[in-house]
């Protein structure tokens, strides 16, 4: 595999690679596997990729533990977390940076920018950024600030040739808000579960499989 692939690729998911600078909104019910899906999309494919989490639903340590359990390589020079949960704590060893509240979008934005620069400076030419999930921001912060934050995040990812994967629970926000937030993204990946079978569908991204594609996280 070349170290300078023009795209971000996804292993063991029915998703083709996407161009650098792409921002994807991942939607699905919180208990339906959207967390695993988001994590898998953030798996580093080679050592010169970095991964940056913005954790709002679960704290930084748990995020990293789950990532490692799914096969994520914890190289803390190139992997880090902005922890936006209420009880988040700094952890220098694990590159976790606490903000203190999902309502503090200024703090989250500053920690994100700072961590992104450092991961980049540590040799990650490509950085995958994951937000799990946007829902607490929508619930705790004013809508204007959420839009400003989402634009800031996706704008930086776009100009820095990164990949953005932001999860949101559609049951936690109203449809109008969801569709307004979706405006900031290049495309969407929807996850659903019917009769015990999980499937994903891609919208808005070119060159992707059409219709619902079964996914099986346990077997992967």
């Amino acid at each position, binding site marked *: 595999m070349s170290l300078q692939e023009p795209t971000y690729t996804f292993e063991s998911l029915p998703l083709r690679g996407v161009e650098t600078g792409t921002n994807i909104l991942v939607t699905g019910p919180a208990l339906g596997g959207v967390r695993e899906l988001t994590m898998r999309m953030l798996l580093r494919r080679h050592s010169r990729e970095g991964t940056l989490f913005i954790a709002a639903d679960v704290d930084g340590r748990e995020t990293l533990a789950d990532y490692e359990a799914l096969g994520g390589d914890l190289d803390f020079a190139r992997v880090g977390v902005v922890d936006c949960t209420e009880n988040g704590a700094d952890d220098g060893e694990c590159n976790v940076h606490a903000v203190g509240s999902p309502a503090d*979008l200024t*703090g989250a934005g*500053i920690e994100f920018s*700072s961590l992104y620069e450092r991961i980049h400076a540590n040799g990650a030419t490509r950085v995958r950024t994951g937000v799990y999930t946007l829902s607490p921001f929508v619930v705790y912060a004013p*809508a204007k*600030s959420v839009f*400003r934050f989402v*634009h800031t995040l996706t704008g930086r990812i776009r100009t820095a040739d990164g990949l953005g994967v932001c999860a949101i629970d559609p049951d936690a926000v109203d449809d109008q808000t969801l569709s307004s937030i979706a405006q900031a993204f290049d495309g969407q990946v929807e996850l659903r579960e019917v009769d015990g079978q999980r499937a994903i569908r891609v919208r808005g991204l070119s060159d992707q499989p059409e219709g619902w594609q079964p996914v099986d996280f346990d077997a992967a």
Partner: protein
Amino acid sequence: MRELTVLCVDADGDERAATCDSLAADGEVAVTTADSVAAAADTLSRAAVDCVVTDYDLPDGTGLDVAARIRETAPDTPCILFTDAPPDRIDTADREGVVVEYLPRDMPEARDALARMVGNLVDQRTQVGYPLPTREDERLAALEQYDRPGMEAAESFDRLTALAREYFDVDVAFVGLIDAHEERFLACAGASWETLTREDSMCTHTILRDDLMVVEDTHDDDRFADNDRLDELGIRAYAGVPLETPRGATIGAFCLTHDEPRGFEADELADLRRFAAEAMDQLELRRQLNECEDARDAADHAGTGTGDDGGDAP
């Protein structure tokens, strides 16, 4: 490319000069400077800027105080904290919603990165507090053809909105055009609104849609529940139809608002669409008239240019 104006706020004269020099290096950026929150506020009250670059530590406050100031006056303006202060030392209390970019000044080639960031943030409108339509640039180009001086004076829009207000028995009926940073009211029956920033305007959401937007109770909608400006204006219920040009660009909306929650019946909404269609026809006719006048002026000009009549040559 048009010249950008950047406000650079830094108390340290040498750092400030170095930042100004690097921003102005390519000749497309004009820089104004300030050395404190108060001086920055003073500059912002006198002139518009396209971007703010500020240190965190200032003699009378912080860079986030400057950011908070610009969020009040010109909220779309991108703001960059360009500072040696590490994130841990930045106090975001009472500033949780301003959202700025952050660039450490001590990283290698920081000032080159800063100049690029200023251009990107302004071009991509990265810090706006509302969703942007997918083809916003085309939309703004289309708006320019319709939005001509004197449009506010057109009485037909006053008549239409006055009729709509009576007909639907609502507080306010208006025609609004949405430009790059604010909604401007061509006519507004029942209130004297002139402009509203886009992040406060409900129509900024209406123009994302193919069809009308109805909000029966703003307090019950995540997009508007925490928007204090709407409460100040007495907007609790809203129905708006996008004004779409024949070429498919949405330039504004025809809207009704009410100070109490209320629903709108299907036949009312059908009638509201008719009002909107009438307003759009008026706008289209005026655009065509302007186009004809421009063409005639150009022809006249070409005429004088040949020296044939010399009638209105200066």
